[in-house]
């Protein structure tokens, strides 16, 4: 397919309005295969203004007289307005943007063409989290092994090639357990908490169906988990659906573990919102945040009505429950909902942040995201196809990953010294998950990424982010290693709207940013030193 077929007008004169804070830009507007460019006239600054077309979530056009206006609502929640000379040009440009921003083909997307200076293709793709993480686990316990049973992705298309499983269970048994779980997602190790000798596992729902089928190998697997944990450990199966929803799932072939079949394991139900209701919650919150004129009462009632903070609270408290069961009760935990690719990952990754100081470092957090989200098969392509502005009927979209980032932000607010990364990294991850020049968040699973050769043909986001010039934006200057578990308060009075994200463009908190810069200065001790220190005589 040729992009040129989709580009109706090459260029037009236009003025760009970027909200109340930034000055308008005037110049030549140009649509290319992946970008919208605005090139100011030769007399002004030579800087190009550039927007990745993939970032456009919705587009609105209006013509009046001999000019037109295009409003672009972006996936990163920015709202831009283009005033374009010429009615024809306006319509053509709008159509071109519409067509180009909704292309679904992965291998023609921008990451496959992006070749930034200073980065080598293939850098930072050396992340093989399951393998690397296994080395860490193996140092502490002998109960687990790295299995390559999924080498060709035939057992479970959404798992990576290698997974960590109980040593006592062989690959054949894993294959049978996989057939008993939705999408082949048999229970695998997510995190091993060595201080308590317990583990966190994740999977998808068992396919018990209306006949209440059982699977001996699946039962054996969970038995082996308890046998490999600290002596006398119990297990909890944390189902992220309500008891009723789990029961209903039997009618469609799913279900939940029967008590009698899994001795030592007890089921807990902690319903978490997912799918369309979660997406709608996101949409309604963003809508509410887009109206600065509303009265206090209206704002508070919309904040309540969208339920976003209620979802934050539920996610955090479920993760705390899992973490607490491990740390305080010495119990093993298996988390699953239905497919095991959304709220399951939300819970397992948050529980690790609470318990594991390593995952709170810059490198550890990146590894956590790679291991627990990307390689664990969170379908980014489907979930992040549209953000909060799209008029398209939502199909598979859901801001599960954003909800995770919000929860991490809440943790960071309650433990401002315990995360090595700052809000900047969370914002960057949000943006890149929805539209990125890097390949990291492409596709829905490791299998798809292999087919598309993402590793060899695109740059990794991590190599982009880990460049020294980016660090100041992403790091938390106040970080000190905290070896303890961090237990957040989940009371409504303790949770806050993430203004830095949801109000970032409508309402830039400038004084706060200046203050943050001051914090950096204090921490690095640069402030007075630069100004007042005479050059040392030695």
């Amino acid at each position, binding site marked *: 397919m040729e992009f040129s077929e989709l580009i109706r007008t090459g260029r037009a004169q236009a003025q760009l309005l970027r909200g109340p804070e930034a000055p308008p830009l005037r110049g030549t507007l140009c649509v290319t295969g992946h970008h919208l460019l605005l090139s100011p006239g030769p007399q002004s600054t030579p800087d190009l203004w550039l927007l990745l077309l993939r970032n456009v979530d919705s587009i609105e056009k209006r013509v009046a007289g001999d000019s037109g206006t295009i409003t672009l609502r972006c996936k990163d929640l920015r709202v831009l307005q283009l005033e374009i000379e010429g009615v024809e040009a306006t319509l053509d440009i709008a159509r071109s943007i519409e067509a180009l921003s909704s292309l679904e083909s992965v291998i023609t997307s921008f990451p496959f063409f992006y070749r930034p200076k200073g980065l080598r293709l293939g850098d930072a793709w050396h992340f093989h989290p399951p393998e690397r993480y296994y080395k860490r686990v193996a140092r502490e316990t002998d109960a687990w092994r790295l299995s390559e049973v999924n080498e060709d992705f035939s057992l479970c298309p959404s798992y990576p090639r290698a997974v960590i499983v109980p040593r006592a269970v062989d690959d054949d048994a894993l294959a049978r357990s996989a057939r008993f779980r939705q999408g082949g997602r048999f229970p695998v190790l997510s995190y091993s908490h060595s201080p308590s000798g317990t583990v966190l596992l994740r999977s998808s729902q068992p396919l018990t169906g209306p006949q209440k089928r059982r699977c001996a190998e699946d039962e054996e697997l969970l038995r082996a988990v308890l046998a490999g944990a600290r002596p006398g450990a119990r297990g909890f199966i944390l189902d992220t659906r309500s008891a009723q929803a789990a029961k209903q799932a039997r009618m469609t072939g799913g279900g939940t573990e029967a008590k009698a079949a899994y001795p030592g394991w*007890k089921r807990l139900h902690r319903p978490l919102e997912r799918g369309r209701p979660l997406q709608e919650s996101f949409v309604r919150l963003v809508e509410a945040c887009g109206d600065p004129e509303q009265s206090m009462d209206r704002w508070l*009632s919309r904040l309540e009505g969208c339920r976003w903070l209620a979802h934050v609270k539920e996610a955090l408290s479920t993760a*705390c429950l899992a973490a*607490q069961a491990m740390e305080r009760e010495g119990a093993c935990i298996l988390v699953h909902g239905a497919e095991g690719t959304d709220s399951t990952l939300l819970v397992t990754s948050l529980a690790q942040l609470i318990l594991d100081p390593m995952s709170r470092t810059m490198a550890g957090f990146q590894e956590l995201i790679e291991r627990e989200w990307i390689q664990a098969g969170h379908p980014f392509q489907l979930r992040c196809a549209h953000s909060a502005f799209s008029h398209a009927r939502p199909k598979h979209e859901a801001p599960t990953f954003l909800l995770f980032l919000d929860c991490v932000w809440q943790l960071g607010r309650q433990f401002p010294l315990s995360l090595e990364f700052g809000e900047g990294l969370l914002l960057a991850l949000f943006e890149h998950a929805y539209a990125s020049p890097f390949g990291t968040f492409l596709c829905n699973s490791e299998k798809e990424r292999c087919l598309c050769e993402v590793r060899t043909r695109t740059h990794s986001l991590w190599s982009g982010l880990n460049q020294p010039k980016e660090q100041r934006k992403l790091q938390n200057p106040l970080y000190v290693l905290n070896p303890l578990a961090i237990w957040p308060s989940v*009371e*409504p009075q303790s949770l806050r709207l993430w203004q830095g994200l949801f109000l970032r463009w409508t309402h830039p908190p400038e004084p706060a940013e200046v203050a943050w810069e001051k914090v950096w200065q204090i921490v690095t001790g640069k402030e007075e030193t630069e100004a007042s220190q005479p050059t040392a005589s030695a």
Partner: protein
Amino acid sequence: MEHIRTTKVEQVKLLDRFSTNNKSLTGTLYLTATHLLFIDSHQKETWILHHHIASVEKLALTTAGCPLVIQCKNFRIVHFIVPRERDCHDIYNSLLQLSKQAKYEDLYAFSYNPKQNDSERLQGWQLIDLAEEYKRMGVPNSHWQLSDANREYKAAICRCSQPLSGFSARCLEDEHLLQAISKANPVNRYMYVIDTRPKLNAMANRAAGKGYENEDNYSNIRFQFVGIENIHVMRSSLQKLLEVSGTKGLSVNDFYSGLESSGWLRHIKAVMDAAIFLAKAIMVENASVLVHCSDGWDRTSQVCSLGSLLLDSYYRTIKGFMVLIEKDWISFGHKFSERCGHLDGDPKEVSPVFTQFLECVWHLTEQFPQAFEFNEEFLLQIHEHIHSCQFGNFLGNCQKEREELKLKEKTYSLWPFLLEDQKKYLNPLYSSKSQRFTVLEPNTVSFNFKFWRNMYHQFDRTLHPRQSVFNIIMNMNEQNKQLQKDIQDLESKIKQRKNKQTDGVLTKELLHSVCPESPTLKTSLCFKEQTLLPVNDALRTIEGSSPADNRYSEYAEEFSKPEPAVVSLEYGVARMTC
């Protein structure tokens, strides 16, 4: 003390306010002439000043004992269970008596003795001098004799009460006074008159022979209502807010719908908007402004003081803020004793007007983190003392009453004590240079108003962030300053040596020889090791926190295993002192 029957009760339980499964601490309750004291089994002390008690309630007897619920004016709520009903009854009666005094002379301030002599006390009272303040503002000048003006602008903020106009009454002298005010401003010929009430209320007042200025009778005035509700609305609004935020097992949705229906943040925004209107009139139009409400001591004080805070950076310093409170609140007759319920009086006169002012200031500090010399702790501390009756500043309802009480001879002033502890109240991010002459222009979109958790849940530690950015920055700042000083000392030493030695090559060697014996360097190294580590330790005590503090632990009734009692020490929380 005649009110105290029982001074000590053992085996009293202090319930966790938000726990749904009645988690508690056991300890001993002591009753003194001024305080109620609870010492738990970890020797942690909880002191409650009798004057802080807003209400005491004795609930129905349970198998565990007799519950006693105490609500304080600083928003602390404690829930005791006293084993024997008799003891509970005694304490209840004593507290009822002790928390509601009939005479000013029985208030704590008249017995409080911080071991200062009379001249120290007097100095304390002279610390904040309003005559000095008017001089600072540049009045009296050729245009002004007495009132409040702003240094850089010729425009002025004035205040009064509502006119007794009724439907048609006029007062020529009043009209002339207003004309004189607007004439005193050489830049602008018109002036604003801000009535801080909702229009409906002001109109209703006309029927009682009061009301508002008729624009036709006064030349050159622009009249404006800004719609701040009266003290009764504010009182019940706060009450609703506290009911909501005190609910056990509160859901996010109930919290926000409660926050909305209480109207509290709406009222805060109204006060802020009024102050901004005032500041803009002065800043942008250079017009003088006359502010009034009904009586001129509640809403008017809020609006005038906030307006001054926006316009003049001096009031954003620690000392300046004290001056502002003295000027716009104390000396202009805000009825502190009635509004705070210092004495056993009319509960309808109690209203959180000053609390609202502090909350507006807090919102400003959130929006302009570098503009204020003081921090949140300072505001909380002031709030603590408007109710404590420990110092004389806020006693009485007007200047006249205060003089009759001879407060300056019989009580101490709060300000010198706050100044002495100044370090605790400094905002490490304050930037005096860039903010000195700037006028604050806050944005009052609804998003900017948040529930002030640190005020209304000041004593509910489990709801707070577990680590304080503020503390660590404060410490780093101190440390940087110290290191800076060390550098300077060392440099001056090098210079001295250099002057003695003409050979520059030796300097480097010299530097080495200086270091080990230099006392400054030694102290700086010690400083580094000693202050850095304790800071971290101090933080440790809060940071890990315990899952048992939080409600998710209670979701899991399934975790039926009893908790080992020592575990929480592992996280270092149990010993946290506040």
